């Protein structure tokens, strides 16, 4: 598969901080690539360098085998996390304005339908709700029929239903062959949408790969969780690793049946017990010692 975008040894130095520290990675065409990390990890700076809105101190960005330039600007769609739009313009006028800035043009009617903006076309930008506004920002990112779309924290601030609708929309865009680069704080979002992820910490990439493979490589066990209030005896006899965090006992095990039998002797009941796979949040916690949420 062709490489759509490549970051080569990106460095961004500010007077008092090294925001991006020699970051390199490749994004294959047609995939959804997730860049994950807590606030201050350098992911937004990295993405903005790739988008061409922030100059790198050193390093290069390549787009389909050549340095990113005017062709990239014509073919990339970008949704920033916080973008103000022009006051007093309607949704349709805003889309028209942005589309006129590009030589490549998508079918605006199709985008309006895809992003469920049909009934909002004549509405003033200032009168949109959070979810409607995010859909408009995504539609703006699509007006040039992009081969590559950047989505920076696209669902921050949305309610659960709006987030799920947005995920469906992103999946449809990806299904049309568009490459997507997503930054997010939400691990469920990354796990559902991303074919490949890179985790950033202190300006560096500390892990990269397919989410399932990363988790399989890091974890061979499952986790049994039980509220501490349910425990009546000493758990030190249980063979597996036991952790206690925020009133929850976590037991890592490869043999759930045996662990449950052992556990039954030391607890009041198993009604509030949960068995789960390790997820990206666990992975990040183990790799960095930080929570991934802001």
């Amino acid at each position, binding site marked *: 598969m062709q490489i759509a975008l490549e970051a080569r040894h990106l460095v961004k130095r500010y007077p008092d901080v090294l925001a991006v520290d020699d970051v390199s990675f490749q994004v294959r065409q047609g995939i959804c690539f997730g860049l994950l990390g807590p606030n201050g990890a350098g992911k937004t700076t990295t993405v903005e360098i790739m988008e061409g809105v922030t100059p790198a101190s050193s390093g290069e960005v390549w787009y389909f085998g050549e340095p990113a330039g*005017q062709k990239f600007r014509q073919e990339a769609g970008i949704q920033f996390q916080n973008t*103000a739009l*022009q006051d007093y313009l309607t949704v349709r006028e805003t889309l028209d304005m942005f589309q006129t800035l590009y030589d490549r043009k998508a079918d605006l009617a199709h985008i309006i339908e895809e992003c469920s903006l049909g009934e909002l076309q004549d509405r003033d930008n200032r009168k949109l709700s959070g979810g409607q506004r995010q859909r408009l920002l995504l539609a703006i990112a699509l007006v040039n029929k992009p081969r590559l779309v950047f989505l920076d924290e696209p669902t921050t601030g949305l309610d659960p239903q709006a987030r799920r609708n947005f995920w469906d929309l992103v999946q449809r865009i990806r299904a049309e062959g568009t490459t997507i680069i997503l930054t997010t704080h939400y691990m469920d979002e990354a796990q559902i949408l991303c074919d490949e992820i890179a985790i950033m910490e202190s300006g560096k990439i500390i892990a990269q790969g397919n989410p399932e493979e990363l988790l399989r490589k890091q974890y061979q066990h499952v986790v049994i969780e039980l509220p501490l209030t349910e425990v009546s005896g000493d758990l030190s006899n249980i063979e597996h690793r036991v952790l206690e965090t925020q009133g929850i006992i976590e037991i890592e095990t490869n043999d759930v049946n045996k662990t449950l039998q052992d556990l039954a002797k030391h607890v009041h009941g198993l009604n509030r017990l949960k068995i789960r796979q390790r997820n990206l949040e666990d992975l990040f916690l183990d790799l960095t010692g930080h929570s991934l949420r802001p």
Partner: protein
Amino acid sequence: MLQRIFAIFRARNIEFVRDRSAMGWNIIMPVVLMFGLSFIFGGGDRAEYTVGILQSSDTIDETAHPFLRTRYMQFVVVDDETQGFRKVGQHQLDLLVQLDSPPRYWVNPDSPKGYFAELALLQTFDGRIEKGQISGEAIRYVDWVLPGILAMNMMFSCLFGVGYVIVRYRKNGFLKRLRATPLRAIEFIIAQVASRLMLIITITTFVFLGTKYFLDTRFEGSYLVLLLVAFVGATALISMGLLIAARVTSEELAGGLLNLVMWPMMMLSGVWFSLEAADEWVRQVAAAFPLTHILNAARAVMLDGAGLTEVMPQILALVAMSAVFLVLGAVLFRWHPR
């Protein structure tokens, strides 16, 4: 390129036209000022006597003649006879006096203040002095101040309407969003200049025609030349606004900087009073302001009937200022805060 410029131009126009408070202010402010001043200065006369002394030297030596020590008279140097005659004709000077041999003076027989200034002159003059007469209609203060009000409104609209708006766009991230498109800085700047130019010329024309109709203000020259002066003047002011806003990210700082530029222009460019009697250094400072050149050219066209050739120095100065401001603005322009 033209498509992109037009897209930004059109969007900015829509934003301006739909923002009724901003558009209303741009129209109402000069109209209210004009009618207010017309009411206040309905008499049209100044409070003191102004006498032009025709001489080549820049300073007036009070010891040269007792007349120059007359109280309640303001003496100004006139180095060009033709200009002096014109001002006497328009009642801008109550008297024009040449003290060098042979002594001569010119007065407008229709000017009451000229009559009294003449009496004062003859009282202090013990020898023979030759008299000349120059006729002409008085210029009312309203006629004189109209170009100033129009130019001042143009200045407010150009500086705040462009400078402040760009800083707001930069602060709220809209410029950063545009940066991520194929739009170039120069295209964005041209669109802003074109949009504001069109809007301000339309509004100024509307206000000018309104005041002309209701106050019957004086107009001696060519409308086309005046339009050209307005066009290059507005371009210079918009470019100045762009330069001020090229890097600023705070609306408060932008407001402060714009005021820092606007107040000296408003006070020293001759909006409210003539700079003829001002110190040389004041006139030199004023020459650095686009507003001064706009006013000098507009007054020359509107009050004296000056043609394109006569106002060409001001037009060239404004074109040069626009070029410098635009180039600097484009070079220094920053899409988003660091």
